[in-house]
């Protein structure tokens, strides 16, 4: 991998970072006096970065030969053998991420103006959003692993701040902490990988690491691959670090959209694809990545089926879709490009779905239970149409995006050969069917059937989630959202329809990314056998969902459900597993140490002290204050001394 020094328009590529950093700094340091225009600045900064990204993208397209441009900014840590520079690498892989992050990110910013209009802390919210964008841009633009790690941590911090934005709700504060801790576990993997790189190769630059990786041997490749996978699992909510993503729904809905579509969870996929020369060294590491992806895509999809909370169902769906991307990344050069294509298309339709869900919640007084929705297609036509387009995209109906980007992953998994090909491909096909089931279920429960928001139901049903009893003048009036919220949804819906086809047809994205991640060994046609089977399964699953939730009325109170439903509602016991395997033994260990400390160590010390103190207390009674008793003891002492001398002498 050789890079060109930055010239022309790329000399100012630091602007990409500078815009959102400036926005975050002004909004967070400026305090209340920026309240009035804060949200406008907050929107302008990612938009400006997006405009620069587009210019850089077309300039890059103009370069016919080498399209990897490195801008050296400054030396961060210059210590003898340890040289770390802050540099920005603009290449085909990073520029598509820049466009996704700033483009979808800007739309979510615009949407937030409307969504957060009634929130007193809107300016702070925009400050955090800009910080999020800045951290994510640093992550994808950095030309070395340490800079990437800085962005990685920044993303973790921003997600913590945003998930816990309504920190007065204990559940939100807990969810933020949970996300942070789960991410820390993954971060440990990434930091160990970086240390291993430095120990083995003596550098953390992409160029240096990838150059030496080939000579590093498969042992180092396997270790690095697995450690990087651990990092990716934390950030991308893959098994076994998946549990934070569902709780992260406590944040405001635009945050969920940003985390799930443009930033955060895509970072793990980026890390895997960016580290492709390391993964190339070890087939076992690639297999581990693919297995994690395949298991998670089924795991997330099953959770999504059981959830009645529209946002949690979408969160399960994100886990599942990121699982597809990890599966693609685990397939090696056969899958990298399609993982990125699916990531981009997913960025559009998942942002569209979350913004649609946010729009429904906005009109329904923050109600998230789909059993209290119903019949909303007449009341919220724009939300309904955009949501439907994103829905068709995610379940992979041709000619929408998901069909183009998901099928090559399924096909590539199928073609990987042998038992693993059967298993991975089979998981991907079944996952497509389950996806169709839960998304169709969501559509029918939300937009069709009778309106159920006024039905009496279980506690927590029709009442607002703040817990205050609903007064009559605040009776629920579902309504369409304002234009500032619907327009981003419309643009995302267009992307959901067109992005997949645009990227895949004529191998546009595959060709563009080829210099960074190599070319897939086989060309996938638009219609393949595994894709066809998946499509049939999708139609059948959608029909099943219609039979269960469209044909018959949906009860406003959740029925008990089978044991599978109960398990899915409980996140397939992910939390229970963490609690019983990690939390409880940890607590026992701390209790044991406390017991040992207080009874053992403290006990020994305290016993010695008490013994000395007690005997001194008794001994000091000898000091009576009577001179004659002192004289007597002196006499006795002298007699004993003389007697002793006599005994020794004689």
């Amino acid at each position: 991998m050789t890079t060109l020094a930055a010239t022309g328009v790329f000399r100012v590529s630091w602007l990409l970072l500078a815009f959102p950093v400036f926005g975050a700094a002004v909004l967070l340091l400026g305090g209340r006096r920026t309240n009035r225009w804060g949200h406008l600045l907050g929107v302008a900064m990612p938009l400006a970065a997006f405009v620069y990204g587009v210019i850089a993208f077309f300039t890059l397209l103009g370069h016919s030969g080498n399209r990897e441009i490195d801008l050296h900014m400054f030396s961060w840590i210059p210590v003898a053998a340890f040289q770390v520079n802050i540099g920005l690498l603009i290449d085909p892989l990073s520029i598509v991420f820049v466009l996704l992050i700033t483009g979808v990110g800007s739309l979510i910013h615009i949407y937030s103006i409307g969504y957060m209009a009634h929130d007193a802390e809107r300016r702070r919210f925009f400050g955090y959003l800009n910080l999020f964008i800045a951290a994510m841009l640093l992550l994808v633009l950095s030309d070395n692993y340490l800079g990437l790690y800085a962005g990685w941590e920044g993303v973790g911090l921003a997600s913590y701040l945003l998930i816990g934005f309504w920190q007065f709700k204990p559940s939100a504060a807990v969810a933020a902490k949970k996300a942070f801790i789960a991410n820390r576990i993954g971060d440990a993997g990434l930091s160990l990988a970086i240390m291993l790189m430095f120990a083995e190769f003596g550098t953390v630059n992409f160029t240096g690491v990838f150059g030496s990786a080939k000579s590093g041997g498969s042992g180092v490749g396997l270790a690095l691959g697995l450690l990087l996978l651990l990092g990716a699992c934390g950030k991308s909510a893959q098994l076994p670090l998946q549990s934070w993503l569902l709780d992260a729904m406590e944040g405001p809905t635009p945050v969920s959209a940003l985390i799930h579509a443009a930033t955060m969870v895509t970072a793990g996929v980026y890390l895997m694809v960016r580290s492709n020369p390391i993964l190339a060294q070890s087939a076992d590491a690639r297999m581990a990545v693919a297995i994690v992806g395949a298991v998670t895509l089924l795991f997330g999809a099953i959770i999504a089926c059981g959830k009645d909370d529209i946002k949690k169902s979408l969160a399960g769906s994100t886990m599942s879709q990121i699982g597809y991307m990890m599966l693609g990344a685990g397939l090696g050069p056969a899958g990298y490009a399609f993982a990125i294509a699916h990531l981009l298309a997913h960025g559009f339709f998942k942002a569209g779905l979350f913004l649609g869900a946010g729009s429904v919640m906005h009109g329904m007084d923050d109600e998230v239970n789909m059993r209290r929705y119903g019949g909303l297609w007449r009341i919220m036509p724009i939300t309904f149409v955009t949501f439907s387009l994103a829905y068709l995209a995610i379940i992979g109906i041709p000619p929408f995006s998901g069909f183009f980007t998901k099928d090559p992953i399924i096909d590539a998994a199928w073609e990987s050969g042998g038992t693993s090909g059967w298993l991975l491909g089979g998981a991907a096909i079944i996952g497509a069917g389950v996806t169709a089931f839960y998304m169709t279920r969501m559509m029918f429960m939300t937009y069709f059937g009778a309106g159920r928001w006024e039905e009496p139901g279980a506690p927590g049903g029709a009442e607002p989630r703040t817990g205050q009893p609903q007064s009559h003048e605040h009776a629920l009036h579902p309504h369409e959202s304002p234009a500032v919220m619907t327009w981003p949804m419309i643009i995302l819906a267009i992307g959901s329809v067109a992005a997949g086809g645009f990227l895949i047809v004529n191998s546009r994205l595959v060709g563009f990314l080829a210099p960074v991640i190599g070319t897939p060994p086989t060309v996938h046609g638009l219609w393949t056998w595994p894709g066809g089977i998946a499509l049939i399964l999708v139609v059948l699953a959608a029909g099943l969902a219609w039979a269960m939730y469209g044909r018959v009325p949906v009860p406003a109170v959740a029925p008990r459900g089978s044991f599978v439903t109960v398990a899915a509602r409980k996140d397939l016991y992910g939390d229970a597993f963490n609690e019983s395997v990690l939390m409880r033994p940890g607590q026992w260990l701390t209790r044991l140490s406390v017991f040992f400390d207080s009874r053992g160590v403290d006990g020994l010390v305290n016993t010695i002290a008490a013994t000395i103190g007690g005997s001194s207390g008794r001994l000091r009674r000898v000091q009576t204050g009577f001179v004659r008793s002192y004289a007597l003891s002196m006499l006795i002492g002298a007699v004993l001394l003389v007697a002793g001398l006599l005994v020794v002498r004689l």
Partner: protein
Amino acid sequence: MSPAGYVFLAVILFAIGGIGVLIRRNAIIIFLCVELMLNACNLAFVAFSRLHGNLDGQVVAFFVMVVAAAEVVVGLAILMAIYRARRSASVDDANLLKY
């Protein structure tokens, strides 16, 4: 010469002084008894000096006298102060300095 007589006398004097220190309460009597003990020692020193035929013991006896005189001066001064404060010369009354 036989020192036995002098040594017996010195032991008797020392025992009388020691018993006096232990059983009497009046500080002045105690001082006298201490002097008695010191002089019993002096007697023994001088007797053994004579026995060995050198002057070392007699020199020590002079030192003891000087030290005894100095001790009595300091001791009586303290005794005066205590007596002025407490109107008593009993050593058992001056027992504040204890545990």
